[in-house]
């Protein structure tokens, strides 16, 4: 009985972690007949935490491909603009990235919720945000910054 119980723990662990080794499209194609297409897309890490797949630094790149370096510019009511940082806003880099991603999507509601959450005077004074990209250029000479490009601008004023 004990052996059977532990065997099921071993088999379950191996099955779950082994399944996560498979590439995502293959996992989805296996799961779809069982749980349906929608759920198959949903039943992925991190939902299965602590069982995870490990797609770390997986994308392939070529020499010279610009590396996006997004930055967030805060706009105050008096027109004053300043570059925002995770430290300045009292956020972790990950939550700051969340804010940038929301701004890139022009998701004003999410941006507002995020700024409200951090309870920072400098965040409260913001009436707008601008996402800029100052890509890192490399491959044909020293590593350097490229020209600044505006990615997105959004107003935080109440409609």
């Amino acid at each position, binding site marked *: 009985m004990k052996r059977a119980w532990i065997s099921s723990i071993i088999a379950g662990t191996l099955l779950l972690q082994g399944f996560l080794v498979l590439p995502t499209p293959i996992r989805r194609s296996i799961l779809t007949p069982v749980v349906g297409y929608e759920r198959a897309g949903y039943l992925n890490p991190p939902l299965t935490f602590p069982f995870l797949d490990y797609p*770390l630094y997986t994308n392939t790149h070529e*020499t010279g491909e610009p590396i996006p370096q997004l930055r967030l510019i805060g706009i105050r009511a008096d027109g004053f603009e300043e570059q925002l940082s995770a430290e300045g806003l009292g956020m972790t880099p990950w939550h700051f990235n*969340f804010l940038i991603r929301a701004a890139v999507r022009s998701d004003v509601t999410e941006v507002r919720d995020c700024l409200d*959450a951090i309870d920072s005077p400098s965040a409260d004074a913001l009436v707008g945000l601008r996402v800029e990209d100052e890509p890192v250029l490399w491959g044909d000479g020293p590593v350097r910054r490229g020209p600044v490009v505006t990615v997105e601008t959004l107003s935080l004023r109440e409609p």
Partner: protein
Amino acid sequence: MAGLRRARDAWNRYWFRPAPAIDLDVLRIAAVGFQLILLWGADWWWGPMPAHLARTAALPDFFYNPIGVLFVYSELGGPRPTLGPVLAIYGLTWVAGVLALIGWFTRPAMAVFAAGSVLIVTFYYSFTDFHHVESLLLITLLLLAWAPVGRTLSVDALRARLRHNIGERRFEPWDQAGVTDLYAAWPVHLVRVLFALVYLSACVTKLNLDGGGLFRWANGSTLQYWMIQDSYFFSSQVALWFSQLPLPVLAVASWGALAFEGTFWTAAVWPRLATFYVPAGVAFHLGIFATQRAAFFPYYALYACFLPARRLLLAARERITADRPLVLYDAACLLCLRSMTILQFLDWFDRIAYVPLQQDPLPRLGRVDAAFRHRALEQMHVVERDGSLHAGFAACRRLAWRLPLAWPIVPFLYLPGATMIGSFAYRRVAETRERFETCDGDACMLHRRR
């Protein structure tokens, strides 16, 4: 049918074979110890864990994206956890972790610690991007909760041994390295296989399965790209320096990473290969941390699953048992039996020999007179290989050198005044021991004499 039976037998042979319990307990101590460090909050970014939990709990609902068990909990209608219960679980987890580490009520403590650790980590990753560093450690803790942990290197094992020796009214030396268990192998083997699967997953996701060259990831430029990116994100000068190495060097490094991740499974199949893969893994993760700040340090603790603790212990004993000092003890005194049991329990490298005073003649000393026996009953005596004698506090100091767990206190035993204070304390304990320990009547030579 016969094929199924053969498969079942092979399965049982692999997972369920008598294995040294000490190998399992070394993994227990490494995994629990490291998770306790993480729970303390040694993370370079988050700071102390309670403060991190408080900050996390204060985040607005829209950051809450439950994962793992919290996803199931929320699907069942469970509300978002609040700080109070989370801190209560944190405290309970800490207590259970300390118990699991020292091995006191090891199995229930291990179960509570594993469950609590998963809940705590799942809680804070439900509010932010998740990371991979803890996941294998958490799975290992969950597996250990089902394993026969604590049969060695634990307070539980010591208490069991004391019960046995006191019950038998004699000191029986016990070798922790000799303890085997039918269920001690499976968690160790399974963690090895999980390591292989984790590294395989990291390798497979780097393969270009959509065409255009399966191994294009190892072109050198890809590594250069990621290094430059992280040099900016983490302000890492090491990453920037690394990114400027010639492209062929970066390509070789990329191939090295792919080869390491893609072939690590061989160490799970043939554990002797771990002598290459474990140092390679340590170097690999140190390099990643230096350049990209990815702190996969829990893996260092989990590499303990490749450590043949019993074999190493026996090999070490073979090299260092030649000059064992003798400890003379009264075989008819319960206090002495208890002291010898504890001493021998701590004597991992078998560096002390235990000789009952009743033995005649005594090794190294030959026949001794009544006056010597009386002195030996008054305080512990240690006889070194050259025949030199050390008694009382001096004997304790000699023995401390032989016990790895006592090494941290050895320097304090040599501080100015330590001899005076130590000798005084020893005499006090020796003189008053009747007050807290009762020997079994006339059997105790010391008490009979008095």
